[in-house]
């Protein structure tokens, strides 16, 4: 069969999977995003049993499994845990390279948040840098309402 295939142009069928999605953010996520949108504030949820403040906020603790009702306002500042500078393009990315991602541990949170780093010299990013959240002027209730985190001046 392979020999036959060499003598013809193999047929290739191109297509896309087009399934539109409308993901329910849920009550917990909605509150978080609405605070981003309306008040430029970042909130986490706290498990008092395990002493963990989750960001992004969760409805239940993954460890003790209890429902979490305690909202904690977090600072807009944090410490950079890790980062990477991206040098390739992908259709998944909303911006073009070079740009940087980071995982930021906001003051008051126990877990890190993945986001963009901006207003930063990509050659000079270092872990443990102190950074602050910068919001977009026009916000819609979306994780990208935070434009990026930038090094503290």
């Amino acid at each position, binding site marked *: 069969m392979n020999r036959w295939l060499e003598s013809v142009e193999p047929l290739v*069928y191109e*297509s896309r*999977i*087009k*399934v*539109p*999605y*409308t*993901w*329910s*953010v*849920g*009550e*917990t*996520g909605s509150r978080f995003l609405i605070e981003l949108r309306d008040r430029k504030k970042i909130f986490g949820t706290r498990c008092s049993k395990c002493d963990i403040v989750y960001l992004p906020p*969760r*409805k*239940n603790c*993954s*460890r*003790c*499994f209890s429902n979490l009702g305690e909202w904690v306002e977090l600072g807009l500042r944090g410490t950079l845990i890790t980062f990477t500078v991206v040098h390739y393009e992908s259709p998944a990315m909303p911006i073009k390279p070079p740009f940087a991602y980071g995982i930021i541990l906001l003051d008051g949170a126990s877990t890190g948040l993945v986001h963009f780093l901006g207003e930063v010299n990509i050659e000079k990013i270092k872990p443990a840098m102190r950074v602050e959240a910068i919001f977009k002027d026009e916000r819609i209730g979306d994780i990208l309402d935070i434009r990026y985190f930038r090094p503290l001046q």
Partner: protein
Amino acid sequence: MGKRVAIVGSGQTYHKSKRLDVNGVELIHEAVTRALENAELTRDDIDLVIIGNMDHFEGINYMDMWSIDGAGGFMKPTIKLTTGGTTGSTLAIAGYHMVASSLFDKALVIGWEKNSESDTTAAINTAFDPIWDRLTFAGAIGGLAVEASAYMDDYGITERDAARVVVRDRKNACRNPYAHLRKEVTIEEVLSSPMLCDPMKLLDMCPRSDGACAVIFASEDVAEKITKTPVWIWGTANRHIYSYINDVNFHGLQSLKRASKELYQKCGIKEPLKEIDVIELYQPYSFGGLLWLESMGLCKDGEAPQLVWDGVTDMDGELPVNPSGGVIATNPIGATGLIRCAEAAMQIMGRAGGHQVPDVKIAVSTGFGGCMWSDILLYGKEKPRW
């Protein structure tokens, strides 16, 4: 046989068309919490998490990894199974094997779906081969309509016969607080509902729902300590025969025929109509509630309508089918097969509340999906002797 395995508890969400108040992880957490409460266990007691859904309905790749917070899998063995509509029953079967292997004592099995998050038909279409089947395939309903037409043609079955099945299930659902559609319908209403795909009308078809179900399987070493009414898995069987829709033999559900034959043999069932006390049948459409009873060997080919008209499958009949209201009333697809399992177990446990069938000793649940595939499980109040 390996270790004997029993169901020791289950939990479901109150199934609805849209659960906008929770994301998928949170929906899962609800069902899991209820199951743990039901079995009086905690997350720490669980040795293994098995979870499934139909990926394209929620668009999450490696869903088992994503669901960890709500599924209870943090720092535990976690694994995902998916086989389309049969996912729920496939998950139940996996719960059985994983515990029977002796490697785990207590497995938490979870099925869920948030059908509201996507276009169900668009997603189902991607199941079929992109070169040969997808362009002419018309979603789940297409294949079922062909089966229904063949059945009507073979035996003179009527749409009215099929409608009687819907009436039964929708009535039963009214007594099930978890069911999605809880309003009775009449035969006339079914017959006059909008035609979707001849002979299937709107009310012949199942809805799509948002919901989750969790079932806890335990080894015989611990099951009786966890609950006074463990539900023993006597046997499981399945057939996922076809890969291409055009290969399917639509005269009788072949996969269910073969799987049930194997199951009865394994479990020593010689007269299923007499020996089985209740069936939770994965019946996504009305005609399936007739034809598939024949495929399960409950009566001769062409005679199921008589069984149904005679009331044999009603709540007070000899062999109630779908006391929960079945799939016609509730269909969060990745959960649906597992809900059949949970409901069958609840019947044996005596915990089915308003839709309890009295004195259930042997129950059966099935799964359906994919390319006319079937899964089947049999449960007993008594420990199996083998």
